[in-house]
């Protein structure tokens, strides 16, 4: 500056010369602001316990590898997950009340693909302890348990009766939704981490459950649900009739199942939709026959939409009574149904009307649900109709045995399987170390009712800094929506229908890098400080400063008068007022 302060000074009779900093106005307050990290509804919803708000923050800044590592703290399969997860997180996104939900799954898919394209690796030291864990079933539940146990320093062997690992992700889900390269790429990382794969070994046949019980310190079971529920009518052994799992397995093995040109698919779940969509790709007409109405269909709405686009027809409120045809199926007799009272699943029950009608077909696929093969379960774990009894962390009645995935009482999805595998890994690790469950147990520290665990949060070592984690969930009313412009979301693009029907090419197109960044930046990062600076700018006391030791801000309680403006102006609900005693 050109002048000294003294030169600029005006001569006066009485001049204030002492800084007001001696006046500790902090004593005035009755409440104080606190920086906290709340749980966003998407994170709470995620059955795999991912830190979505955290990786959106990193992706928004182009920090892809860090974002990938943040996901990998929780879930070993981001590229798979971005494709097949039903993304219930997006239904809970606070942004839906503002404009559109953030397209979380497309960002995750981008990050997963980034990891594959750049061959990103997770390095782990060799097993630290002699205790070894057997994993039975290399589906998403078993693979995830193996991954986390290996990361925690345990030796892991994984047994699977199939020729290749992946479970339903390989033999159920068709490649137009999950390309095999993606699946292989993500699973091969486990190989590199030193997980021992024992493939084409059926436990209970090739090796006994007893021998695992004796040889291993702990066993995780994730053998999935591979028994197709029978329709319970006659004539199911006619030619041209398949059950969904056989049919999809053939397809996924590259075989061409002998199926007709007009196919009736019985059922309303995701496997019914997949069977119908595959049939269209084989050049057949496909009609889904479902005994309730569209509103009750368990299949995901986006899947239903894509099936419609591909020309799949739907016949609602109809249930098969008999199958026509001599050797080969030639038609189905259907009974008209009506909707009755609510059943246990909260959907309206189909009730027979007695009225029947026929449809023509020369192929039929039954897809009315999958259950665990009871005979494949070990004799010593208790189960109810194939649903294995386990506590919240997956421990069964036979204490050394843990379970997860489709064999326990959770929704049958890849994401739930992953979450259950992670929970069981935590429980097994603690079991091996002889840690008793107490009030600090991981099951006390779960996000939301589904009991998902976020490991980074649990360990306090997230790449996205969280200093004062709380289990409160942030809703839209905790946000300050003024600070977020309304920006419509990027829509997922799909390849044209005629392209789709030519083969098994992936249907949904990836987002470009710009689209991914723009989606990630639309994320509110609910409940977490992103260092936006509002608290500091709006503090009338000038008492909020950047934290000199690292991330975020600190409020100087010597001067804070407790007005609470910072809390009101925090865009994302990452602050709260606490009354003082």
């Amino acid at each position, binding site marked *: 500056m*050109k002048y000294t302060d003294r030169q600029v000074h005006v001569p006066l009779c009485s001049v*204030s010369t002492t800084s*007001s900093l001696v*006046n500790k106005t902090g004593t005035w307050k009755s409440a104080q602001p606190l920086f906290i990290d709340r749980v966003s509804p998407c994170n709470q919803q995620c059955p795999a316990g991912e830190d979505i708000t955290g990786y959106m923050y990193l992706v928004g800044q182009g920090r892809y590898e860090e974002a990938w590592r943040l996901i990998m703290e929780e879930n070993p399969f981001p590229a798979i997950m971005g494709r097949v997860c039903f993304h219930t997180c997006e239904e809970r996104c606070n942004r839906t009340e503002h404009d559109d939900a953030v397209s979380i799954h497309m960002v995750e898919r981008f990050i997963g693909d980034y990891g594959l394209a750049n061959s990103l690796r997770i390095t782990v030291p060799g097993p630290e302890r002699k205790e070894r864990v057997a994993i039975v079933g290399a589906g998403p539940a078993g693979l995830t348990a193996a991954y986390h146990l290996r990361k925690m320093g345990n030796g892991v062997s994984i047994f699977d009766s199939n020729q290749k690992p992946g479970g339903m992700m390989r033999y159920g889900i068709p490649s137009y939704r999950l390309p095999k390269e993606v699946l292989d790429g993500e699973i091969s990382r486990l190989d590199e981490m030193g997980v021992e794969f024992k493939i084409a070994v059926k436990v209970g046949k090739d090796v006994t459950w007893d021998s695992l019980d004796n040889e291993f310190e702990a066993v995780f079971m994730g053998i999935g649900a591979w028994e197709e529920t029978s329709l319970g009518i006659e004539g199911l052994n006619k030619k041209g009739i398949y059950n969904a799992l056989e049919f999809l397995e053939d397809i996924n093995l590259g075989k061409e199942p002998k199926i007709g040109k007009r196919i009736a698919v019985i059922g309303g779940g995701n496997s019914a939709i997949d069977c119908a969509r595959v049939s269209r790709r084989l050049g057949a007409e496909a009609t889904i026959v479902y005994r309730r109405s569209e509103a009750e269909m368990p299949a995901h709405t986006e899947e239903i939409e894509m099936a419609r686009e591909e020309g799949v027809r739907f016949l609602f409120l109809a249930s098969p009574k008999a199958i026509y045809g001599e050797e080969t199926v030639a038609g189905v007799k259907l009974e008209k149904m009506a909707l009755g009272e609510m059943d246990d699943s909260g959907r309206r029950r189909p009730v027979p009307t007695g009225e029947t009608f026929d449809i023509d077909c020369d192929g039929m696929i039954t897809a009315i649900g999958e259950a665990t093969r009871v005979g494949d379960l070990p004799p010593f774990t208790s189960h109810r109709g194939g649903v294995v009894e386990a506590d919240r962390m997956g421990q069964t009645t036979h204490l050394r045995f843990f379970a997860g995935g489709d064999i326990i009482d959770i929704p049958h999805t890849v994401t739930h399987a992953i979450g259950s595998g992670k929970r069981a890994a935590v429980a097994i690790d603690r079991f091996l170390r002889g840690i008793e469950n107490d009030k600090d147990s991981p099951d006390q520290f779960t996000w939301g009712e589904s009991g998902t665990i976020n490991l980074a949060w649990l360990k306090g070592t997230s790449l996205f800094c969280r200093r004062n984690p709380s289990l409160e969930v942030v809703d839209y009313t905790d946000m300050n929506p003024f600070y977020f412009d309304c920006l419509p979301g990027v829509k997922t693009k799909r390849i044209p229908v005629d392209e789709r029907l030519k083969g098994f090419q992936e249907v949904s197109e990836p987002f470009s890098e710009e689209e991914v960044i723009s989606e990630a930046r639309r994320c509110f990062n609910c409940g977490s400080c992103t260092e*936006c*600076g509002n608290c500091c700018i709006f503090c009338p006391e000038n008492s909020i400063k950047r934290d000199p030791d690292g991330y975020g801000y600190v409020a100087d309680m010597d001067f804070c008068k*407790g007005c609470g403006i910072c809390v009101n102006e925090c865009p994302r609900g990452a602050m709260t007022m606490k009354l003082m005693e």
Partner: protein
Amino acid sequence: MYSLNQRFNNQDIPEDEFMASGNSACAGCAASLSMGLALKGLGKPTVLVIPACCFTIIPGAWPLTALDVPVFQAAFETTGSTLSGIKAAYRKRGMDDVCVVGWAGDGGTFDIGIQALSATAERNDDVVYVCYDNEAYMNTGIQRSGGTPMGAWTTTTPVKDPKSEPKKDIDEIMIAHRIPYLATATAAYPHDMIAKFKKARSIKGTRFIHLLSACPTGWRVPENLSIEVMRLAVLSNIFPLFEVENAEIFRQTVIPDEVIPVERYLRLQGRFRHLTDEAVKEYQKMVDDRFERLRKRFEITE
């Protein structure tokens, strides 16, 4: 880095701080926040002239001061003439680039100081005059001023007889002086406010900045909502943010995405609690009419 609050890029806010902690404003006072932001925009060398108002005491009682710039305490009615005098003295000393800034409340501007202010503006003296308008004599106990809006409760316009006259339109009065720069601003829009102070500093002649400054005590709003209430004033067009150059170029600097009903602004505040739905409707019409008059002039410039 992208703007992490998605609306404002807070990285643009200057780091300079010329107002320290430890001031004696009430909790949630928008005036003390406004001063900090104004000085970020003005920078140094700056001298403040402050007449009787809340800001006589906010920086601290003698011998304390929260301000890192010199302050001259003026008599209530003399802000305008004191500014002119101090500016003349600096010019005489060859220090013409010292920015001389008056900082007065609505009482000291709309009522008691208007004669001296008008004279300064008429001479187009090279000073900045800031009125931080909290819409009543807050420092002496919430008495009605010319800046108090119609319908508001104050201790001298009790609920059974609230203020029946509309707020004096100080902006039009100052525009009529054809000064080189006039702006309205509020701390709820800090980027806009800082930009206006920067601009004011770069212009010669009398510059007038009218700040809306929430007073939780006098407006009867919770302390944590003082930014919120000022934001609603802008979003409802009660206090549109604009600037006027040479009484000719009118520019609205913040255009709300969506104009909200004045009801939301009024109902947040205890001082308007007694207003009937009928009165709120009339209020809406008054605000709409005033904004319409302004809007026409915004359009002419485009």
